[in-house]
Structures are given as C-alpha cells and as structure tokens.
C-alpha cells in the first residue's frame, strides 16, 4: 500500500511537471503525460498490467515493466549524449572565436595593437 502511494505520488509529480513545463515537441509532452497517467492506473490495477503483458506476448506485468524501463532508460541516455554533444559544439565555437581573436604573434610589430584581440 505504501509503495503504491509513493509510486502514485511520483507519477503525479511527473504528470504535474509535464503539464506545466514547456516541451520542444508537443508529442513528447503528451507521451510523458500519458505515460504518467498509465503509471497511476497500473499501480492500482496490477492485473491489467499482466493482461497487457500477455497481450503483447510477455509473460508477466513485471517483465513488461522491466523491458519498458530498459527501453526508456536507453532512449534517455541517447538523448543525454546528443544534448551533451550539442553543448560541446557550442563550446567549441566559443573557444574557437576567442582563440582567433586573442591569437598571439611572434615578435613583430606589424601585428599592431589589435594582434592580441
């Protein structure tokens, strides 16, 4: 019972955050909200999860949850890697701009005062 309540609280939190937060894609917002709503439903109707599992050819509801969690985790990690790469690209552009602006020239004079940026 306590576990069910905690799980419900977590799904409600996800539902609330998804409802309030802005998403880049509306489809993602709807998917997260549906996922949270389904979570609440299945927490209180575990038999339905088992029926759903059997429907898609997986033995038990618990197994289906494991598989679904694995897939979601994988997609989340891939998404995080892609986001990290994009931030890295932006950082590279900034670092490059600074490096060129502040380039140092060996001795010489003709470089002028702006040779250091």
């Amino acid at each position, binding site marked *: 019972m306590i576990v069910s309540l905690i799980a419900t609280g977590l799904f409600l939190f996800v539902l609330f955050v998804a409802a309030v937060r802005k998403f880049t894609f509306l489809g993602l917002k709807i998917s997260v909200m549906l996922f949270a709503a389904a979570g609440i439903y299945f927490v209180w109707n575990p038999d339905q999860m088992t029926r759903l599992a059997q429907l898609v050819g997986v033995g038990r509801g618990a197994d289906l949850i494991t598989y679904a969690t694995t897939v979601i985790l994988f997609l989340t990690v891939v998404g995080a890697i892609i986001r990290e790469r994009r931030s890295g690209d932006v950082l590279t552009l900034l670092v490059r701009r600074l490096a*060129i602006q*502040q380039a140092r020239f*060996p001795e010489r004079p003709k470089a002028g005062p702006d040779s250091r940026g």
Partner: protein
Amino acid sequence: MNGSCFNAMSRDDTLWFVIAAFNEGPMIAEVVRGVSPHAQVVVVDDGSADDTGDQALAGGACVATHLVNRGQGAALQTGIDFALAQGAGHVVTFDADGQHDVDEALEMVARCRAEGLDAVLGSRFLGATVNMPFSRRLVIKAAVVFTRLTTGLNLTDAHNGLRVLSREAARKIRIRQDRMAHASEILSQIARLRLNWREHPVTITYSEYSLAKGQKISNSVRILEDMLFGARS
C-alpha cells in the same frame, strides 16, 4: 587579429602550416623551427596544461589558444579559420609530434599547385613508415577499408595527418568532428564535395615520443562512437 608572423626572405607567406598541439611542450618549438623558414605557421594550443603555447611562440609560430581542450579536429578547424583569415593560399595540416617531414609537405604543396589540385593527402603506404608498430598498421589498414567503403575514395591511407588543401578546399571543408573522427570526416567531405585530390607518398617516423603521444588502438572505438553520434549539422 590582423598581422602576420615574422617574414623571412625565402618564405612563402601564402602557405600556412596548421599544427594542432596538446601538451607538446617538449617538441613543438623544434617542429615549428623546422617549418617556419619555409611557410607561416599557426599552432593551436588545445588547452594544454604545459607550456606548449609559449614554446610554439618562441619557435616562431602564431599561437591561437583554446581555453579548454576541444580535441584535434576542433583545433585544426580553428587553425584553418585563422590561416584563411590571414589570407592563406594553401593550408598544410601537420602533426605536432615530429612524425612528418617538412620537405615532403613542401613537395605536396608544389604538386597541389602544379596539378591544380584541391587536396593532396599524405600516404604512408605509398611512401614509408619508420618503426611503425604492427598493431597500428593493422588498425590503419582496417580504417582504410572502412573509409573506402563509406566514402568511395580509392585511398591507400586513412587518418594521415599530413594534408595540403587549396584555399577553396579549406574554405569548403568544415570539420565538425571535434575529436579524432575528423580524419574520416575530412575524407568524406572531400568525396561529397567532389574535390580534385591525389595521394602523395610520405614517410611517417614513429619515434618513442610520437608513439607515446599518438593514437592508441582504443581510440578507434571512440572514433566509431563519434561517427555514430555524429556532429552538428
């Protein structure tokens, strides 16, 4: 940022050597001194922890410093951008660890100009290798096969850091792979842009220093990962 590195009478000031360097303090000044009588040099100090930048400057190179390490691909693109801004007619990408031979690079430039090519790529398998470990030969051969399959370019070498690019080619090629996958990326862009390229035999000398600094086999896994996740479009 205007200005140019000091001029020498015999030097070709439209020719720029671009050297990406990360923690190459012990070697970089010597490498720059080998090049600077012949061409302008820009060393991109890629966030080194040692005195690479100061050493390169003392050797006679222009130095552009990445405040944080961004990888060899990113550093080369910075150097190419810098050289183009300085009016480079041809750009040579050159390793910082003394593996490449300046005279061969100059031969490649002469060939690029004489034959009106967009790019001349160094090939250690048309030329020679000195002290090349067997495991590295194996990995590079595998990379050659991979590159042939993915780009359609009939190459004998891949991941060779010695290249000559005409100004137009250097302007068209944009390296977006910050790390080591840039070598494959440059080749795939050469293929996509239908640039006029040739390979040229070069000698790569594997010294104890360059082997310690150079790519490890484990890096090839990282390169594949970089290519898989791609770079920004």
